[in-house]
């Protein structure tokens, strides 16, 4: 089972992100379960959503305390909310930021996680450029596809076209594809042998 926890703030599409991820995994013939943290969500308040992906039926209903991946949609949550609690030793972290992880004070995480498992993605900027709204959830999902390989980008694109109509869908696909490209290139560069 692969478990994803998404942290953000009300209005950033945190719940929608988990749902889109579940639909994309379902598209691949896998079992998936997405659910919100069930708070009285308010715009701007910290929000958490969850997504489980497995090759078998998912029966558990408990919140995800030991995620394989954490997506942080809002950097202002860093160092204020326990974002990385229970993260698997070989887990992944994706942060909505154009800054390198070291610059975000995540040096400890960089040291702890395998190389290439922590990435930043300027998701808000990508969303503004492609969708015209500062909602970082979809670019981060594109980046998630590149970082983890858990869900292919074309499955995410189909989930987006299922969820949104026409031009809105295509703009979101473009945003996700751009984010995928950025993280994919970064990962490739990381994997390339260095002298």
């Amino acid at each position, binding site marked *: 089972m692969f478990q994803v926890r998404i942290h953000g703030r009300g209005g950033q599409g945190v719940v929608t992100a988990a749902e889109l991820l579940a639909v994309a995994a379902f598209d691949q013939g896998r079992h*998936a379960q997405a*659910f919100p943290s*069930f708070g009285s969500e308010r715009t701007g308040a910290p929000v958490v959503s969850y997504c489980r992906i497995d090759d078998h039926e998912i029966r558990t*209903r408990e919140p995800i305390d030991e995620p394989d991946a954490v997506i942080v949609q809002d950097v202002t949550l860093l160092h204020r909310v326990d974002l990385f609690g229970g993260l698997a030793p070989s887990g992944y972290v994706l942060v909505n930021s154009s800054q390198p992880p070291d610059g975000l004070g995540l040096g400890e995480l960089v040291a702890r996680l395998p190389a290439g498992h922590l990435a930043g993605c300027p998701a808000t900027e990508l969303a503004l450029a492609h969708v015209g709204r500062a909602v970082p959830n979809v670019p981060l999902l594109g980046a998630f596809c590149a970082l983890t390989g858990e869900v292919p980008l074309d499955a995410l694109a189909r989930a987006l076209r299922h969820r949104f109509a026409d031009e809105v869908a295509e703009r979101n696909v473009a945003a996700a594809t751009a984010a995928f490209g950025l993280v994919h290139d970064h990962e490739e560069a990381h994997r390339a042998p260095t002298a």
Partner: protein
Amino acid sequence: MLQQLEGSRAVAETVARCRPEVVCAYPISPQTHIIEAIGAMVKDGRLAPCEFINVESEYAAMSVSIGASAAGARAYTATASQGLLFMIEAVYNAAGLGLPVVMTLANRAIGAPINIWNDHSDAMAVRDAGWIQLFAETNQEAADLHVQAFRLAETLSVPVMVCMDGFILTHAVEAVDLIDQAVVDSFLPPYEPRQVLDPDDPVSIGAMVGPEAFEEVRYLAHLRQLDALELIPSVAEEFAALTGRASGGLLHPYRLDDAETVIVAMGSVLGTIKDAVDARRATGERVGVLGVTTFRPFPVAAVADALAGARRVIVVEKAFSLGMGGVLATDVATASPASGPELATVVAGLGGRPITRRDVEGVLGRSAQGTLPRLSFLNLDEDVVARERARMAASRRSGPFAENVLRDLAAGGANR
């Protein structure tokens, strides 16, 4: 067709395929998405003919449902928590009058203290109202139970409540195989009322009944509930033959063969409990699960049968009767076989507190060691409780206890 859907959406789509003619509901979390989706379907004509009636309260929602049902329409509504309590007089009336309204209850705690999260306090508060109460384990079952609910309700002239865990199911997105319209149409014939307000053949419904006949009228309603115990399994079997899905019925036994310890529970927590049971089975422990799908009428004989081989029974329930203990547990005790298994109640998941596989394994471990008390509260913070008891002892004007506990927690337990 199998789709990845929010639970509320799956229920709304399924209810629409049951062709309700009147839907009247008042929005309340976590039921709202169901009603919004059905309202949209009525508005865009996908659900027709159907009248969606906006009202000012839950009391009116159930009253309109009663009126619609008495006029011969297939009537549906949905609510949760305080909304259910607000309509409770009409809830009893729907049952007492024998009107086959179907209602979704998106289970949520009851205040005070106000709490929007899931537990089963709302369903338990109306367990004696005369409604059939069915509990869904998954969103697939929640959807399927609605088709069976209309069939049961209209066959028996008894209202049916489909209980699904608020947020945990209503807001979860998972795969659901939505039933085909043609299958629903073959399973659910048009509503043929036993009584109807018809100007061409007038009757009055809702007589005042004095001591000369009240007991008999109530006993007739009781007999209809007992009839339901016979009908529910056969309706579930017929449904399974059409869909291949084991939704509904009286009970969902899991790994009960040779089980010495059996956990009894209702609703979505059964999935987590099954995972825990599988883990313990892997280490050789003889444990099993009994899911109660039909809570009212309570399947006394079937529960007795299912627990016949058990030495220990642990009821894990998301509600309790203050000053007494478990509600489901009391019924399980009544149904327990003469062999008299040891019975323990674990109250858990109140007000949305998570129940994890680790928690359930812990309960099984304590039971095996003989250290599980007859009544316990899962993950209760006894220090917080003790500090508030101390504040109450120290000062007459200790203040509101909910606020005190929150302040205590916010201060990291330092506020004494």
